[in-house]
């Protein structure tokens, strides 16, 4: 198994994790007086991670797409059959690539962090390392360890460098995450005890033939535990407050990759280990006859609710925060279709939303807010930003169009696939989700109009108005170009990701790992 490798390809992927943690450690030890050094070091680490991710992704292309390659397999705790088992299939590769992109963009958009710069990047890189780890772990225990490692840095990133009600938002986010992971841990312990396989590898557990009655109660437990982090309605309330309070880079990571951790866990652990947990209950209540129906309905509610809430916000960042809840609803809906096209769409939507949400938060939080010092749409309306910050306006037009799901951008392909997959199961879900898409156009348009193309008379109270806004800096341009370019490229040529995702999804739905 270990030798089933594309020449010099996969082993490198493990270095995404090692590099990030090593980088975090070095950042923590750097002198506080050298912020520039901390920035460049973080950028170098993030770019190296991205380079490894790209290389790993490229090496996986070609003939052996479907194959899952083992990267590292070392016994970790022999008495309990726990292995340090890193591997990568198509889904992992795509999400590792996303993490690499989000990390680089995150560093670029935190270039202006002056307060405790080295500590900021230490927490940032520790979070990134945990995320890489989750996407590459094929041992349930190891996956859980990385999943929890990713929780604590979020707290400090938001609580120290955040804005609006940051301590409240940080604590809320962490307690929601930790409660979700407690549910997952209970499920993990139950699976370990029930399987009696003396192994925690995902393969072994998937083949453990767990009793249907066990799967029936363990599936919702684990799925909900992960879905809390994916922003499933009604457990989504941490997301908008957390996103808004977080510093730009942390919002980008939260919406871009951390919410994907939850969705990925739902797929890799929830669906793969407990396939029978989605079977019908044998009775139905208001049209809901299985956990699958229930979670699909919650996903659809999330889509519509998130979109409507976004339409009603007065704070620019809250608009994006609620739109994330709505877009993550598509991911969960796609997962609940349980067919190849829907689940593939869900994974592609994870990638696509990761890029687009990152871009939106970067524009709102860094490019606009750091210059205007307000996020209130009513105040931005008086600032005529389209004239004064044309770059920001155009970047937001592109990001907004991508977010609406217009053809040519990654979101279109992903949401289309999710909807096609959902149609095959239950057309009513699609009809309801369609409302969400229409409202998405409305709230994006409204935000765009108010924030950039407002024609309200300048307010006399805003003394900033007279002043020139700071010029756009090179890290901002680079970041925007990177993220928008990727979204456009994937929108025009989705096969590059689909070819990796689809075979992996097929294998996974056919029954666990290999």
């Amino acid at each position, binding site marked *: 198994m270990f030798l089933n490798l594309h020449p010099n390809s996969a082993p490198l992927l493990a270095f995404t994790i090692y590099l990030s943690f090593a980088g975090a450690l070095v950042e923590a030890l750097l002198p506080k007086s050298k912020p520039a050094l901390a920035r460049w070091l973080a950028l170098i680490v993030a770019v190296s991670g991205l380079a490894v991710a790209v290389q790993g992704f490229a090496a996986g292309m070609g003939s052996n797409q479907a194959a899952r390659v083992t990267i590292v397999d070392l016994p970790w705790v022999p*008495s309990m059959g726990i292995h340090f088992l890193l591997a990568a299939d198509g889904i992992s590769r795509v999400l590792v690539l996303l993490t690499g992109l989000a990390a680089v963009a995150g560093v670029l958009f935190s270039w202006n962090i002056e307060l405790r710069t080295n500590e900021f990047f230490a927490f940032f890189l520790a979070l990134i390392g945990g995320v890489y780890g989750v996407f590459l772990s094929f041992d349930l225990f190891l996956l859980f*360890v990385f999943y929890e*490692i990713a929780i*604590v840095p979020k707290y*400090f990133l938001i609580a120290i460098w955040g804005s609006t009600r940051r301590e409240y938002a940080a604590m809320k986010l962490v307690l929601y995450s930790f409660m979700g992971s*407690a549910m997952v*841990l209970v499920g993990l312990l139950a699976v370990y*005890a029930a399987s009696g396989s003396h192994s925690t590898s995902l393969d072994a557990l998937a083949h453990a033939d767990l009793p249907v009655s066990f799967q029936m109660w363990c599936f919702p437990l684990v799925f909900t535990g992960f879905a809390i982090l994916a922003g499933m309605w009604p457990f989504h309330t941490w997301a908008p407050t957390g996103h808004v309070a977080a510093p730009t880079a942390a919002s980008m990571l939260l919406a871009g990759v951390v919410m994907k951790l939850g969705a990925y866990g739902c797929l890799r652990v929830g669906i793969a280990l407990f396939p029978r947990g989605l079977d019908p209950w044998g009775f139905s209540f208001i049209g809901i006859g299985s956990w699958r129906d229930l979670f699909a309905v919650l996903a659809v509610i999330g889509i519509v609710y998130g979109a409507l809430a976004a339409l009603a916000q007065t704070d620019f960042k809250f608009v994006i925060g609620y739109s994330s809840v709505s877009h993550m609803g598509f991911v969960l809906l796609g997962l609940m279709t349980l067919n190849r096209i829907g689940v593939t769409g869900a994974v592609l939507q994870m990638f696509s939303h990761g890029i687009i949400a990152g871009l939106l938060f970067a524009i709102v939080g860094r490019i606009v807010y750091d210059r205007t010092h307000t996020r209130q749409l009513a105040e931005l309306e008086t600032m005529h930003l389209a004239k004064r910050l044309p770059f920001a306006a155009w970047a937001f037009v592109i990001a907004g169009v991508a977010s609406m799901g217009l053809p040519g951008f990654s979101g279109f392909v992903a949401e289309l696939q999710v909807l096609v997959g959902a149609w095959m199961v239950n057309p009513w879900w699609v009809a309801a989700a369609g409302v969400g898409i229409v409202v998405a156009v409305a709230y994006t348009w409204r935000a765009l109009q108010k924030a950039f193309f407002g024609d309200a008379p300048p307010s006399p109270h805003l003394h900033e108005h007279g002043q020139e806004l700071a010029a756009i800096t090179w890290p901002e341009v680079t970041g925007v170009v990177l993220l928008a370019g990727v979204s456009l490229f994937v929108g025009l040529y989705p096969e590059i990701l689909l070819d990796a995702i689809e075979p992996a999804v097929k294998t996974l739905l056919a029954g666990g790992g290999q």
Partner: protein
Amino acid sequence: MNYADLFRVTLPETVLELAAFVVLVMDLVFLRRAARKMRLAVAALVGAAGCGAALWALQLQGHGGLSLGASGEAVLLATGGFAQVAQSGILVLTALTLLLLIDAEFTRHAGEFVAVVLMAAAGGLLVAAAQDLLVIFVGLELLSLGLYILTAFAKNSAKSAEAALKYFLFGGMSAAFLLFGFSYFYGLSGSTNLWQIQRAIAASGPSPLFYVAWILVVAGLGFKVAAVPFHLWAPDTYEGAPTPAAAFIASVSKVASFALLITLSLNWLRPGGNFSGEEHLLEGIYRAWQPLAATLLFVAAASMLAGNLAALAQTSVRRLLAYSAISHAGYILLGIAVHPVYSGQGSAPAFLQSTIGPAIRSTDAVLFYVLTYGLTTIGAFGVVAVVERATGSDRLDAFLGLHRRNPVLAAVLLVLFLSLAGIPPLVGFWAKFNLFAAVLGASAGVVPFALVALAVVLSAVSLYYYLQVLKRAYVMPAIEETSGKIEKIKAHPLTLAVLVLIAAAVLLLGCFPALLEGWIEAFTPNL
């Protein structure tokens, strides 16, 4: 047990007592006119060296499983096995407590303090290995009397005196309960040896009096491990005692008491000797255990709930650590109380064979938990001591801006508190996971599962109060920061080195738990 045997078995205790004597003599004879710092340093280092020597004496007993001598013999002290693991732990933790004592300022009587610590630790060694009611009681009293004295040691502090008085009154009461329970055991069986008591009770069938006796014993031991509802002394004692004394109570005394609980519970699950032809005895033993386990489970659940919920409201870090200790005692009790249930079907000896594996696993998990918890707590109190010396308070707000006032100390605090909360890759996470997995592996059923689920959810709750401390250390600015001047917190280099060492061990054992686990397993091949 003849005297030569007894001397061999109690060699570590003897070494500790000798070390205590040496410390006293050196302090009183040679260092009378030396500065306080010097006296404290010498006493602490000599004491730590004494612990090292005792550890060496312990190694002389070999690396075997638990040895009780030939069955039927009235053995007083066990060697090897979990007893030796617990004893090694006690010695290491005592040495660390002494090393963290170096820049303490609460007393001028350095030699006495160190000597009392060593004697109490000798009591702990006895408790961990005792197999006889009288030895258990003598060991517990030796340990407890030492702890009362240590708590009262800060003679200038009214709080210290108050804490000691409360601790002493509670302790005296609970010792009375314990002794009363023991007297019933003796009355029912005519013996003070645990093994003989067990056989006698199995033969006659458990009487109601037996369960009364057990409740009394649980009350006595529940006091030692600070389990609800016998926990009321803990917050006050932790708050008022000099920090090294509090650290000692929170770690060493816990290890010894849990080792005793393992002795008592394992005696029911691993009846010594050969039962061929006496299957009815074995069955009787298992039937007698079920109600005993139920009382422990009740205490465990109550401790987890009350400890975690009360900790949420604390503003003093010492009290917070006390309530957190109560909740941790609840988790550990789960591992002791949850054992396979003999349903009456199938032969009792076959059941014994099938349950030995899971029972060993949960003993190992309990030991791992207690040892690593003790290590982490000593470190946590070490940090509290340094901060308290600089700010004069253990309020949450004393930790404000710690990351700028002493970055190393703040980093140690971060590691230790996250470990207590059970965040990977720190050892606290592994200890919890291991313990809960062992509990579920040993006993299937709704009640154990529900209790484990409760424990996991409550440990998620616990993150809140640990973060309250870390938030002040890392997030909120120090009060003076607004005026631009930051008052650094200085720590003795040796103190800082020991604290960093503890934090490093917490991280290392969390990443490679097999290191400590393999060591424990080597001692517990059988029961």
